[in-house]
């Protein structure tokens, strides 16, 4: 077990290093930072001063070492636009993104599982067929376009829900959250539902497949034979057994929600880190771009590491095959 964790940890560190190198090379070779920093009228002496002050006169490996050294101390430069440390700006935006992603995850479970169980228990009814057709649509519809249509229908035409921003926030454990105020909830609903749509479809399909498999198992038949109510059979005996794959996949997909929140945040002007990166790319705010890329890579590597370790705890075959190879 320890061997497995150490190997995975080393691999994660390697991934972060490789990604940091790609980002560093990409940003420094593809784009010329001096061009962005210095105005066109600057003379040669002024340019050289800037080059020196940014350490760009040093060979690349020293620059890279400095970059890593800075990153380890939490220093990824100052934003050109906001004039504050890039890392701090992003850290400030993370709660909004996590709130959105978590809300979407909750929706996926709350909406997806009941619909999936229903479609699995009565596969031939009109309702089930509609649910399945809807889930196919949920897979095919491009998220950003659905978001636009939500805004058009619910905000512009019907005027029921607000379309932009986070609304009122309250502080909870030192973090601003929207879901505890009515206004915040109203602002949260559309973007979270938009982000959840894809996952809802996925949960429906997973749950349905699981249900159809489980209803024919002996223990379900036994529970029914024992005279248990239908409710108890479905809610206890069936649910317990279909939850394992659903929970695993949802855990894996949390990262996907954070990645896709870039789209939803842009559509609904949700002030999270996804909107920040798009704005920063637009305004060529290099330090923020670099810091975002490093943080998102780190978040993903951590999620994957945790999932891998949990996996190996639950299923010993995973770590055994790993150690053998």
């Amino acid at each position, binding site marked *: 077990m320890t061997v497995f964790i150490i190997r995975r940890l080393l*691999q994660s560190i390697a*991934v972060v290093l490789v990604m940091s190198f*790609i*980002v560093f090379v*990409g*940003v420094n070779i*593809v*784009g010329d930072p001096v061009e962005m920093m210095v105005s066109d009228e600057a003379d040669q002496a002024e340019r050289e001063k800037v080059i020196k002050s940014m350490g760009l006169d040093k060979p690349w490996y020293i620059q890279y070492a400095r970059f890593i050294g800075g990153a380890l101390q939490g220093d990824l430069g100052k934003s050109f636009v906001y004039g504050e440390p890039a890392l701090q700006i992003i850290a400030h935006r993370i709660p909004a993104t996590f709130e959105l992603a978590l809300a979407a995850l909750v929706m996926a479970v709350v909406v997806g599982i009941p619909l999936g169980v229903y479609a699995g228990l009565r596969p031939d009814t009109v309702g089930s067929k509609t649910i*399945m057709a809807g889930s*196919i*649509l949920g*897979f*095919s*519809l*491009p*998220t*950003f*376009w659905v978001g*636009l*249509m939500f*805004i*058009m229908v619910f*905000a*512009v*035409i019907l005027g029921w829900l607000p*379309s932009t921003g986070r609304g009122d926030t309250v502080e909870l454990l030192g973090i601003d959250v929207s879901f505890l105020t009515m206004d915040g909830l109203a602002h949260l609903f559309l973007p979270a539902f938009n982000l959840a749509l894809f996952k809802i479809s996925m949960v429906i399909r997973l749950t349905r497949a699981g249900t159809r498999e489980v209803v024919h198992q002996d223990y379900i038949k036994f529970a029914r034979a024992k005279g248990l109510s239908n409710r108890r059979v479905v809610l206890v005996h069936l649910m317990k057994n279909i939850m394992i794959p659903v929970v695993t996949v949802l855990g894996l997909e949390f*990262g*996907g929600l954070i*990645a*896709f929140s*870039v*789209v939803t945040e*842009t*559509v609904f002007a949700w002030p999270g880190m996804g909107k920040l*990166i*798009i704005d920063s*790319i*637009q305004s060529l705010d290099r330090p923020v*771009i670099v810091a975002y*890329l490093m943080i*998102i*890579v780190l978040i*993903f590597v951590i999620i*994957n590491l945790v999932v891998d370790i949990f996996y190996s705890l639950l299923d010993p075959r995973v770590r055994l095959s790993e150690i053998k*190879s």
Partner: protein
Amino acid sequence: MSDAVTPPATPTADEAPIAGAVETPFRRFCRDYMESRIATVALAVLVAIILIALFAPWISPTDPYDLASVSILDSKLKPGTQSMGGITYWLGTDGAGRDLVSAIIYGLRISLGVGVMSGVFALCIGTAVGLTAAYFGGRIDAFIMRVVDIQLSFPAILIALILLAILGKGVDKITIALVIAQWAYYARTVRGSALVERNKEYIEAAQCLALGHNRVVFRHLFPNCLPPLIVVGTIQTAHAISLEATLSFLGVGLPISEPSLGLLISNGFDFMLSGLYWISFFPGVALLVTIVTINLVGDQLRDVLNPRLQK
């Protein structure tokens, strides 16, 4: 899809004489495919979309990017209004007075072009890597698959976003980003089926004949790995089109000079809050129809090409 489960195929009376005595694999394939009506309709629509995209300059009512024929006076017209020049704008016009029908037709061309091009490149690279891994096995395989696994643990949109943040906008850049984001799916698929095929007798026979590695891999192994690859190829192409539209919408994909469907939708976003829905609604419908038809065709191909479902 569930309704695509094929009942035992009974050749109808009128089919047998035309088909002749022999049923070629291609004929059987076509017959199996046609068994799902939805998939057949989807294929027809898809072919129509591809033809429209290919022949855009001859089909579209106006040239939306010919500055001489576009008038700002015609901007933001409702669907169905007639212009002073006598053209009817069936889907209305956008903020610059361009006919939306024409803009969508030209947009399809760019969207499909980028999607297919990146799909083909990703398929070539992924296939080569996957075959190498499966054929040689051992350390090469372990290394390649570790890289693939790591890459697949990041969502495609994130990889594309990272690359585009570094590279900037452009057709070539988004194609590169999509290829890098997608090659791993192909590599994994090809490796999976190649591993199964590699242990079959015909490969052993080819190796016993002392044929070169290249010949064994490309003439014997590769053709037998094709069916799953075709299925993944269709679905990934739909994915690539959707991804390109999303990235262009976010403003990190294509430049304004290459107005794909995603950019058209993005342009309409600015007018949406004032109630001018059609500017982003109709390009979105075009995008949706394209993606759904490709997915339906891919689903049916999966059923038809799956030997386990064949009777």
